[in-house]
């Protein structure tokens, strides 16, 4: 029956995720779909590219025309940022090490936030009274200004890896809890009635109905939280200002030394990290639920 492995939330048999089935469905519509996909790539790549070029143009203009040469350090032109920040291996490798440190922190923070967030949301979804009991605290957690709590965390738990991870968990937890809970409760009443009629066990209902129904919302939450976790890693490192050097400390150091090129390069790198986790979860969501959920905007 359906309770063969209740320890996992493997909500469905593999056939639902079997890509072979999707291919069967798509086979009928392939030519049209391909054409529109091509148009979609041109349509989704060109406009942002144009804006990007425009921004670089404005950047050059400000840096070379607007700014007095003596004040050019405020905004170095793009090629200087490239030469000093990226092409100079000594500088670039320092940044990569910082990025690696912050990425690890963000990764563990996100992972723990996901596990904790799922757990909380599942518990809350099972009884209204539990939801009422816990939800206010999730809101409080969300409302705490992270800048206020970072020094406190350092003060209590030190400036090591786990404190940094904790900052990420605090900042990334809320969207996961809220979205997962919303998703779990989004299953259609008619479907619930059907499960009730056929005397489905609570766990069966969770695995077969509520959990899959939650997935689109879960992924929306993950995309937000992944970005927040990256920010948490940087903010924690920035304010701790000691321990293993992450991108936050580098940003601070470059700013203090007026090393505009490196500062810009590390801002770009850390944004790239945030953007890539966002894109990754978008991709993952399209891969796992794109076949049946509404149009996922692959961004």
């Amino acid at each position, binding site marked *: *029956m*359906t309770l063969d492995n209740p320890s996992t939330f493997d909500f*469905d*048999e593999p*056939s*639902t995720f079997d890509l072979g*089935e999707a291919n*069967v*469905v798509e086979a009928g519509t392939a030519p049209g779909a391909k054409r529109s996909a091509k148009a979609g790539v041109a349509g989704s790549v060109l406009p942002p590219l144009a804006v990007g070029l425009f921004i670089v143009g404005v950047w050059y203009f400000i840096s070379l025309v607007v700014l007095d040469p003596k004040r050019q350090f405020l905004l170095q032109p793009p090629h200087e940022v490239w030469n000093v920040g990226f092409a100079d291996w000594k500088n670039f490798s320092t940044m990569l090490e910082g990025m690696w440190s912050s990425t690890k922190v963000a990764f563990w923070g996100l992972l723990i936030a996901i596990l904790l967030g799922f757990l909380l949301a599942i518990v809350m979804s099972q009884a209204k009274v539990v939801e009422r009991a816990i939800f206010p605290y999730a809101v409080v957690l969300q409302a705490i200004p992270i800048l206020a709590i970072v020094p406190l965390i350092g003060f209590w738990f030190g400036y090591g890896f786990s404190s940094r991870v904790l900052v990420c968990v605090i900042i990334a937890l809320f969207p996961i809890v809220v979205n997962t809970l919303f998703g779990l409760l989004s299953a*259609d009443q*008619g*479907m619930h*009635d*059907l*499960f*009730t*009629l*056929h*005397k*489905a066990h609570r766990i*069966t209902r969770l695995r*077969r*109905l509520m959990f*899959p*129904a939650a*997935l689109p919302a879960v992924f929306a939450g993950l995309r937000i939280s992944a970005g927040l976790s990256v920010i948490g890693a940087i903010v924690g490192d920035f304010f701790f200002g000691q321990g293993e050097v992450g991108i936050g400390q580098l940003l601070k150091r470059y700013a203090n030394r007026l090393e505009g090129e490196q500062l810009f390069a590390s801002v770009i790198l850390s944004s790239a990290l945030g953007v890539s986790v966002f894109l990754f979860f978008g991709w993952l969501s399209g891969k796992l*639920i794109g*076949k*049946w*959920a*509404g149009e996922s905007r692959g961004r």
Partner: protein
Amino acid sequence: MSQCPLSFRNVSMTFPDGTRALSDVTLDVAKGEFVTIVGPSGCGKSTLLKIASGLLEATSGEISVDRDRIGYVFQDATLLPWRTVRRNVELLAELHGFTKEERTKLAEEAIGLVGLRGFEHHFPRSLSGGMRMRASLARTLTLKPPVFLFDEPFGAVDEITRERLNEETLRLFEQERFAGLFITHSISEAVYLSSTVHVMSTRPGRLVASFEVPFGYPRRPELRFDARFAELCGQVSLALRGAHS
């Protein structure tokens, strides 16, 4: 009392907010009988089915329903969007603990019966409303339910699809001979499908008129053009108009 798989005796229903939905409904559905209830919207028809299925408890009255493997088709198809048609059709068999082989066999049979062959691997969002309803019917059929409740199942599909689905419902009934309780707005649908048609009054719903349908099964679509068919439809319509006022 009766050995009917579905029997209501003086059933009344008042919701906690004071809404009186049903008043003193007495009704039997025997095996091999197809009973239809027509009535104005909001009169308590869905409430009646929910009580029959056990989703709601009546305020008073006696109810006996064979709820083992009960069949209940809702107004919406209520398919799981993440499952293909076949996996949706397998759902109830899954909830009842059938093995994978049994499920596959039951699902394939049911899909064949409702004419969805070739769409087994489609997801619900790529199906038309009529096809979704067929999938929903197939899902219920897998259990070979002794009692089959239909809550305005074809209200949302176009007239042509509706008539086709009526044909198919008749075939299913003629083959399975369940005890059917069917809710509809459409008088011709009611007369075409049923052995008995009950007319329900406005809220609180009471059964105000009953009509035995004199045609046997199997029925053919030509029946719709029979003069007696038209006359019976007229009588039901008249009773329904009386129920409205």
